[in-house]
């Protein structure tokens, strides 16, 4: 609380007795000063009153004109009943008529009718009150900047409310000593004080650092951490802005307990996956390998509009599409989330439990991520600029063998296979330069890329109308050979209007983004680093690909010519539009009606060109090109009614609403081939043959929802939500589902026994909720027996049809039952806040492509699975306030979470197709593996312990738990045991340092898994394929050796190669292919310096700061080779980005 009376106390000593003369003088002054609004005369009233109590009359005038009255309550005792018969009488006349008999006179100030005791009335105010008139004040923040729009409320003997103007000043017509003045402003701590007679008041508001009362964005509205009983975590702009990332999901890693963020590649623009509280789906869990087929992700909503593509990949195969047997399988590609500029985001709320998500019904099953963009705030026009520039490099690349080591490996392989080097198959030994050495790892991943980000923000406005426009440009190049870039241009705007009466509010905004990602359409170039180190040059002096060397054709090798692949250009142009309008009107003081409508569209165009010049001329190639385009639209309309009422000591809030959503996606593909000129590849006109294809997806969704919240005296909170959903994804009889939740909260710290006895506890809340949410996550039309055209080639003129789905009308909503309980504590005046949550989710009736034996015609049929998947875990977050010691201050935060999942039940699993895939009671993330038994000293092959106890190099690669003959008798759980992050901000004067670490304790496939389970490069020893240096010298060479790596082989043909191949395949499914992949990463480090105000003033700036930020600076891990997050050697490694920048505003 801050109250500074800078000005001297006013010298109104004779206020006890107001003389008429004095009064008149003042009246004239006031009238003159305030320039009585002409509008007052235009206002008309209709009153038919006979002996109406004065107070009632005041109410009628108030409701008809919107004018408020300002008077001392005590005076009403002397007021006389009003008798007036007026029809459309001008307000001025009406007031004059009725006030003739009253002991008051009046004046109209703005829209306030100020009453004043007539001296002739002879009434005295009570001697203890000292009345003051025309008191002025100023509201400013701690830097002295005026706070336009701050709300000033006077209560006590008078009741009055006004707002500070653009200069931060406000006027109080009357006030008595002892009345209370409170001043509030969004984002600042409210200040209350008792008026003691000063004529001028200066109120200084401090920024609100009380996290408890800060705004938390929830479903269809906002709440505070104090009142919220659900599981919501919010990340604000301050946390996002410090991180130089293109994809905002990358900025969330480690920031939100229970949110698992997984980048799929280091390629600029590549996808990052997000998952809330574990995997719910069996369809997506690992089966025989660690490849995840799907990966259930939360619902993404931007400014109330669901994102058209959610977090799907963009169309077209690109450099980012490489899968290479990493644990993410086919989840790669370019991200559609890049259409939002992280700098345009105000906050991101992650809704995790039933209380928070149930109102979204079917769509919130996997959690909800609400992205809110920046809104305009009242204030003078301000322009701010942020610019940074930096570089990006690959981290933890894989050192490969040098030429001498490589040749020794190859000769060993040939001798193991009893082969002699032949010029056709082994040019690396026979014809290549034996001393040439190229570090291909360095050639492909050793480059440095550029990162540039520019953001301009213009905003301003008055109390009723505000605006914000911002533009951004982000450029990211690839640290890979070739001319590849990701360029993004964004335009964000927000306009807000509030009517004078504050009853009508309008919020309108658009986001537009254009992203152009130019890369290579052939991810195979990513294995270029495995070229033999003595491999000849790939390009000639002019930069054209070379395809042969001394009779050896590069095309016959595994890697071909990776630099030629880079000439296969793939360009993704993505256009994102998101526009939303939200209008609300307060019909009654307690009742607001509102309408939110949004439209979002993503247009993608993808062009792939395979030039003749990128292909081996010996095959007389022609050029080909693909032109893909896809438009995805979402229309979303949500009408709502909000009702708030104080009932007893409690506040009731009711929300009723509905949703209409329409999704439409249309894709058109043209594949053209037969070009004889590379110059024509940008058009279809040079092609000789075409494949043309189109497809579309329709989706409609309606729901009705309600939320009832009752908060009794700030102590007891009950929250109920309900939702009835309809989805077009289901058969006509199965389209509707009901979902709901109930939550209870108890704020203990409001209880006197806590206040009196546990003084160290400034806040304590217990809350629990239980509820359901659903999922309609299936492709449309799966319920009917669909057929499609059999192919391009006709059978005697008939294209023919073939069936693609069976008749299947029975499946319906999946159901996720969620239970969440939490303890929320604040210590030391809320300088330390601790939140601990326990949750348990049970996924039932999951919609999957249920495995079926092939005699049904299909390998999977859409169905509600009979099993239940349970996810449970805990989340802890701790945050500190701003701890100060002189010029030094510190804030810190820590969060961590643990999730475990298991197949809770599966009725009669033994008689289902899942019998051999899952074990009831075990985690879905468990991978069955074969016990590894080292390298056989005699044969030199990896060996394993079979289910029957024998040691073999050729075990049965099936689960030994539930399938006949399987040798996979142990389990590896790759689900992280503990994940989290901790951040610290140190501030010394104007210097500030932010360090954020994220960590994970987990197991994962190791580098040996990459090497031995990768079909792209063959087994170590394969002609022309280099291997990581780490293998060198560890391999088996001769009988009797106790080696850790099996013998090198030339290939997997022949019985020797076949045996080695079998053993290597088994190795990938063995205990030795998984190891600890825990890590702590310095995710973000940011150092900033704010110039002294005196300097910035001279420069004409409001403020200015310089900073250096780094992303992914280092990682501490025991994971031997590769990145513990990427978990594969065959992908673009995670990138380290270091930028320097400036933020300035004028």
């Amino acid at each position, binding site marked *: 609380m801050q109250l500074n009376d800078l000005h001297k106390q006013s010298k109104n000593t004779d206020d006890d007795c107001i003389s008429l003369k004095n009064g008149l003088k003042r009246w004239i002054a006031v009238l003159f000063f305030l320039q009585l609004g002409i509008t007052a005369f235009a206002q008309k009233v209709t009153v038919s009153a006979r002996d109406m109590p004065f107070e009632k009359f005041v109410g009628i005038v108030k409701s008809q004109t919107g004018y408020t009255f300002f008077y001392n309550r005590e005076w009403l005792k002397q007021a006389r009943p009003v008798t007036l018969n007026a029809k459309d009488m001008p307000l001025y006349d009406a007031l004059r008529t009725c006030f003739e008999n009253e002991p008051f006179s009046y004046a109209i100030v703005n829209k306030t009718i100020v009453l004043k005791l007539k001296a002739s009335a002879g009434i005295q105010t009570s001697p203890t009150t000292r009345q003051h008139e025309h008191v002025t004040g100023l509201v400013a923040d701690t830097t002295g900047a005026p706070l336009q729009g701050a709300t000033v409320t006077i209560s006590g003997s008078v009741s009055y409310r006004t707002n500070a103007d653009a200069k931060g000043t406000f006027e109080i017509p009357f006030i008595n000593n002892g009345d209370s003045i409170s001043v509030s402003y969004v984002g600042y701590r409210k200040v209350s004080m008792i008026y003691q007679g000063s004529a001028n008041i200066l109120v200084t508001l401090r920024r609100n650092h009380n996290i408890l009362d800060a705004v938390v964005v929830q479903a269809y509205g906002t709440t505070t951490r104090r009142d919220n009983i659900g599981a919501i975590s919010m990340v604000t702009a301050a946390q996002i802005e410090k991180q130089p990332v293109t994809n905002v999901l990358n900025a969330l890693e480690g920031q939100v307990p229970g949110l698992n963020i997984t980048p799929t590649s280091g390629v600029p623009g590549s996808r990052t996956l997000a998952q809330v509280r574990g995997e719910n789906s069996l369809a997506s869990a690992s089966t025989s390998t660690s490849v995840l087929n799907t990966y259930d992700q939360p619902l993404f909503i931007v400014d109330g509009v669901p994102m058209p593509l959610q977090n799907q990949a963009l169309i077209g195969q690109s450099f980012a599409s490489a899968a290479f047997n990493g644990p993410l399988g086919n989840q790669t590609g370019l991200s559609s989330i890049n259409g939002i500029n992280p700098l345009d985001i105000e906050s991101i709320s992650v809704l995790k439990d039933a209380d928070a998500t149930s109102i979204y019904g079917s769509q919130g099953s996997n959690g909800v991520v609400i992205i809110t963009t920046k809104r305009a705030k009242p204030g003078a026009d301000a322009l701010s600029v942020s610019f940074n520039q930096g570089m990006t490099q690959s981290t933890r690349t894989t050192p490969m063998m040098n030429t001498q080591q490589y040749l020794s490996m190859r000769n060993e392989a040939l001798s193991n296979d009893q082969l002699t080097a032949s010029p056709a198959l082994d040019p690396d030994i026979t014809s290549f330069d034996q001393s040439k050495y190229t570090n291909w790892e360095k050639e492909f991943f050793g480059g440095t890329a550029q990162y540039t980000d520019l953001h301009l923000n213009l905003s301003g406005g008055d109390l009723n109308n505000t605006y914000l426009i911002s533009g951004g440009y982000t450029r990211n190049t690839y640290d890979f050979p070739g001319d590849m870039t990701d360029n993004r241009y964004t335009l964000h705007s927000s306009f807000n209007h509030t009517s004078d009466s504050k009853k009508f509010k309008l919020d309108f905004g658009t986001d537009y983004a254009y992203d152009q990602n130019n890369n290579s359409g052939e991810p195979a170039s990513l294995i270029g680093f495995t070229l033999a180190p003595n491999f000849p040059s790939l390009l000639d002096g002019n930069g054209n690909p070379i395809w042969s060397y001394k009779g050896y054709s590069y095309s016959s090798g595994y890697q071909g010519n990776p630099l030629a692949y880079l000439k296969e250009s793939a360009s993704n142009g993505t256009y994102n539009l998101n526009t939303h309008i939200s209008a609300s009107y307060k019909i009654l003081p307690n009742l607001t009606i509102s309408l939110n409508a949004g439209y979002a569209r993503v247009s993608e165009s993808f062009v792939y060109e395979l030039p003749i010049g990128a292909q081996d001329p010996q095959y007389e190639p022609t050029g080909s090109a693909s032109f893909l385009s896809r438009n995805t639209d979402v229309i979303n309309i949500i009408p709502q009614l909000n009702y708030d009422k104080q009932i007893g000591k409690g506040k009731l809030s009711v929300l009723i609403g509905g949703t209409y959503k329409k999704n439409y996606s249309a894709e058109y593909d043209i594949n053209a081939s037969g070009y004889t000129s590379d110059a024509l590849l940008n058009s279809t006109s040079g092609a000789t043959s075409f494949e043309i294809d189109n497809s579309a997806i329709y989706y409609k969704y*309606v729901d009705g929802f309600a939320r009832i919240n009752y908060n009794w005296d700030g102590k007891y909170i009950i929250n109920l939500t309900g939702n009835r959903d309809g989805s077009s994804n289901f058969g006509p009889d199965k389209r509707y589902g009901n979902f709901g939740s109930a939550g209870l909260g108890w704020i203990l710290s409001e209880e006197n026994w806590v206040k009196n006895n546990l003084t160290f506890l400034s806040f304590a809340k217990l809350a629990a909720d239980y509820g359901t949410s659903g999922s309609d996550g299936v492709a449309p039309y799966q319920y009917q027996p669909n057929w499609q055209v059999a192919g391009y080639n006709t059978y005697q003129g008939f294209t023919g049809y073939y069936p693609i789905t069976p008749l299947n009308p029975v499946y319906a909503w999946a159901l996720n039952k969620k239970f969440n309980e939490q303890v929320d504590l604040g210590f030391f005046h809320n300088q330390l806040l601790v939140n601990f949550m326990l949750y348990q989710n049970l996924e039932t009736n999951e919609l999957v492509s249920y495995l079926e034996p092939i005699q049904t015609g299909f390998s999977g049929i859409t169905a509600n699975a009979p099993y239940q998947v349970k996810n449970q875990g805990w989340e802890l977050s701790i945050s500190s306030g701003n701890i100060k010691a002189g010029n030094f201050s510190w804030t810190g935060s820590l969060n961590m979470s643990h999730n475990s999942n298991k197949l809770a039940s599966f009725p009669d699993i033994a008689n289902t197709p899942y019998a051999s895939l899952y074990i009831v009671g075990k985690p879905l993330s468990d991978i069955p593996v074969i016990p590894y038994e080292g390298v056989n000293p005699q044969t030199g092959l990896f060996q394993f312990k079979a289910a029957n106890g024998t040691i073999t190099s050729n075990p049965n690669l*099936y689960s030994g738990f539930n399938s006949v003959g399987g040798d996979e008798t142990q389990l590896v759980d790759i689900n992280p045991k503990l994940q989290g992050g901790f951040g610290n901000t140190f501030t010394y004067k104007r210097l500030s340092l932010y360090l954020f670490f994220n960590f994970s304790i987990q197991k994962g496939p190791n580098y040996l898994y990459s090497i031995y389970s990768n079909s792209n490069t063959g087994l170590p020893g394969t002609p022309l394929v280099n291997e990581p240096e780490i293998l060198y010298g560890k391999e088996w060479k001769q009988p009797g050796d106790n080696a850790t790596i099996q013998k090198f082989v030339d290939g997997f043909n022949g019985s020797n190669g076949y045996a080695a191949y079998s053993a290597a395949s088994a190795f990938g499914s063995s205990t030795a292919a998984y190891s600890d992949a825990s890590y702590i990463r310095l995710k973000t480090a940011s150092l900033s310096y704010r110039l002294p105000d005196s300097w910035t003033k001279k420069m004409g700036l409001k403020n200015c700061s310089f900073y250096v930020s780094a992303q992914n600076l280092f990682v501490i891990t025991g994971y031997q080779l590769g990145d513990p997050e990427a978990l594969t050697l065959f992908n673009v490694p995670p990138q380290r980005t270091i930028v320097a920048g400036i933020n300035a505003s004028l």
Partner: protein
Amino acid sequence: MKTKYYISYIFAIAILGIFGSSCKKLLVIPANEPGQLVTSNVFADSAGSVNGVVGIYNKAFSSYGPLSGYLSIFPSMSADDVTATTTFYAPIYNDEQTAGNSTSQNGSTGIIWTGFYGNTVIYQANAAIEGLTASKGITNTLRNQLIGECEVVRGLSYFYLTNLYGAVPLALSSDYTVTNKLPRSSTDEVYAQITKDLTDATAKLSVSYPSDGAARPNKYTAMALLSRVYLYRQQWKKADSLASIIINSGMYQLENIDNVFIVGNQEAIWQGLTTSFYSYATQEGINFIPYGNNIPTFPLRQELLNAFEPGDLRQSHWTASTTVNGTTYYYPYKYKNRSGVQVNGNVEGEVLFRLAEQYLIRADAKINEGDLGGATADINAIRTRAGLPNTTATTTSQLTAALLKERQTEFFCEWGHRWLDLKRLNLLNSVMAAEKPGIWPADGHSALYPVPFSQVLLNPGWIQNPGY
């Protein structure tokens, strides 16, 4: 205040718009996905109905379809027609290279099982029969013809399934809740269904082809398969009489040896057209004929080469050789087109049934019926076309042996004839043990292919074929 009402109206209309209109209407989406039809559309009229059946051929004869030639390759490796020079195919085919690796997981034969049972053959035939039966928009003539075609397809599928795998599930419905828990039906039950399908198809199909040439089954196609079924079931009279009807119909004649596999020849009773990229070439041509100077993937085995008598046109016209690094390899050359190579501009198609087989079926039946003269005449008909003199065999056993050898040299690398002949004549164990010593398992379990391991896992309660 006017604006107040104005705004309230907007909200009221918006809310009424959403809740007032029926929710059912709000969820209406087009009746089907773009580019797709539902069963009732497909069989609503004659054009759709034909497409609903012809789709089977379009898919089945395309590159990886179950009728695209795998059945000429895999069983030929299992028997003694060819061997394989790549380990990819090795494990299941009793190949010397990978003896001992013959486990049920590794075989590529799964493609046969999943190909037939998948949505484009047996399932589609089932769905089409149901759709055609219910259709109100087609004539009975068309209904009969199309159902007959489906029954031939279904019969053919089960014929190969039961011969290669033994007991197999008998899926006869498009309702997955009926078929997903099927047990494996015995060979007798499967044959009963095949016979029923083909008898019905014989009645429903007409003599004239529904297609240009023999690209789709006619009445004689159903009879040709049925006569083979009767032969396998040792119902000699029935086999004899059906083969005779076909031979005597006058619609077919034994072709010049060079024309047997060319589209439009007079010998083919059913010749599928390939719909893959190289529409003039079959999978046999693509797989058997080596590229450039490469070693053939499937060289002919010496036993087959030894079986040809001197002057046999089938050796000179239906096999060829190439020499790589001083070693000469022989390979099947019945089909002469392969990707990028079209010999004499001919178009080749997958010959499933041809008249020569009917001669040899009838010869077989007649030997068993005691009509040695008739049998000899039929065998000689085939020998004559092959440029060989009449057979010298006279006794039953001599004729039986001569017939087997004739079938070996006539049908090598063609639709698994050799493998199935050895099996139905109970010669498999003795012949294989002699020709593949140390590799052919003593218990003879290799006579049946393993049910794909994944399918055994998907059907709890099923028991894998013994030995796997």
